[in-house]
């Protein structure tokens, strides 16, 4: 298990030089923006957000409430899951323990699932979240195999690829994702990593965190606090 530094997060997308070049016309942009209607503080619908999750494994009790809430939120058919909890049993009687690893789409910044899509159905949506256009998906299932975390599946009823969307329909209205909302131990924390004031940013700053399979270079945006076994 490799521990990541916070530098792997979205801010690495903009280099210092790019920032200086981009900020030159900022005065002009500010003038234009000043004439626009003020945007809500919940969600600005632009790529300046980097949504993700911090999961504190020390607080997960393995109740699977998140898996159930997700199933009911999206009416996910039997046999497939958008989010679930992996259980690992360790040790030998009487010294045994169980560890839990809640899983969801990692909202990677470099996604193999988007690059293999032949029709462009898999894309980054206006929230900057990796998502699937239901009307463009032909159901070839290549993204299911390409995701190194096996987070995607072909919906057996709709016969198109589906996955966790980080509950963008809820977030856009200022409500936390279903799994976060239901988490009894407050193990799951959702937020914007580009906002230094957000709870997720502060958790990543003040804790040692790790992501799943960081060696693949997919830049996952789900950070885990605590020990886990992949």
């Amino acid at each position, binding site marked *: 298990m490799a521990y990541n530094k916070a530098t792997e997060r979205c801010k690495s997308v903009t280099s210092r030089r790019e920032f200086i070049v981009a900020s030159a016309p900022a005065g002009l942009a500010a003038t234009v923006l000043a004439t626009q209607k003020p945007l809500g503080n919940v969600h600005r619908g632009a790529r300046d957000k980097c949504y993700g999750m911090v999961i504190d494994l020390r607080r997960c009790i393995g109740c699977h409430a998140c898996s159930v809430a997700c199933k009911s939120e999206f009416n996910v058919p039997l046999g497939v899951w958008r989010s*679930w909890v992996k259980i690992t049993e*360790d*040790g030998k009687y009487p010294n045994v323990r169980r560890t839990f690893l809640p899983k969801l789409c990692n909202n990677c910044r470099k996604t193999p699932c988007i690059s293999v899509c032949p029709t462009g159905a898999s894309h980054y949506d206006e929230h900057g979240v990796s998502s699937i256009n239901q009307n*463009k998906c032909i159901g070839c*299932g*290549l993204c*299911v195999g390409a995701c190194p975390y*096996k987070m995607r*599946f*072909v919906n057996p009823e709709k016969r198109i690829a589906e996955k966790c969307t980080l509950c963008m329909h809820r977030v856009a209205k200022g409500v936390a994702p279903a799994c976060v909302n239901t988490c009894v131990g407050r193990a799951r924390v959702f937020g914007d990593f580009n906002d230094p004031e957000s709870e997720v940013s502060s958790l990543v700053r003040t804790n040692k965190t790790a992501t799943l399979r960081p060696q693949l270079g997919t830049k996952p945006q789900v950070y885990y606090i605590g020990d886990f076994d992949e």
Partner: protein
Amino acid sequence: MPSYDIYHLPALNWMIALYFFFGGLAGGGFLLSFWAGYGKENSGHLARASAQITPIALIIGLLLLVFHLGHPFRFWLTLTTFRPSSVISWGTWVLTLFMIVSTVYAFLWRINKGGSAKVLGWLGVPLALFTSIYTGLLLMQLSGSPLWDSALLPWIFLVGGLVSAAAVSVLVLTLTGHEPAEPFFGLKRYICALVILELVMVGSELVALYTGSAESARVANMLLIGRFSVWFVGLQIIVGSVLPLGLLILAGAFRSRILPVLVSVLLLIGVLTVRFVVVFAGRISL
């Protein structure tokens, strides 16, 4: 230590395995026809026969490919976009072009315009090569299975495609009553060389799997002594490769009608098994 996790498997099924077979047959058929067209004088009927096989195999393969999709009637969406990072996107465009070129090519051979067909062949060869290796490239894009993450896979599929095309050509020519000027219509050495090459590549693949991680060694064990051993060792290696190779070398000089048919059928069984083993063993080892 036991763990309980969710595994979403990619939707690869028997249709994809059969498509791999027909795609390889189409690509191999075109290459064989092109090669035979520039070959000796009496190889004209071989070039003709394998040219006819190509578009037929390709249309069957394309139908299988389209109907394995969750939404077959949305396949045109792949033709309205081109995404360079997606192998399927490349594949759709190349297969469409290859379909057109190979149909015209087969038609030219049909109306005995071999000369013009040969010129068109130069355009078709890169398309045929891509069609043959495309299936392997497709599997390489999927992550996870050590059986699919192999640079040899596209080339194993290419050689298999050439073998199957030779086998089908021999079968068609024999059954339509052509008298071979040479045993196996001059294809004996060609088939032997390809089958040996395929065995060598499969052998190196196994060595690579055994010297890799514990996971890849587990896959190699599954093929050699595990649940796929009947298919891999029995059908693919012994029945599909070693047996026809032995028959070709030992009995190839005999002028009998049964022998070419028997060898071709065995070779086809071998090539078909490779596809099914790669798809299903790879799927399980994800």
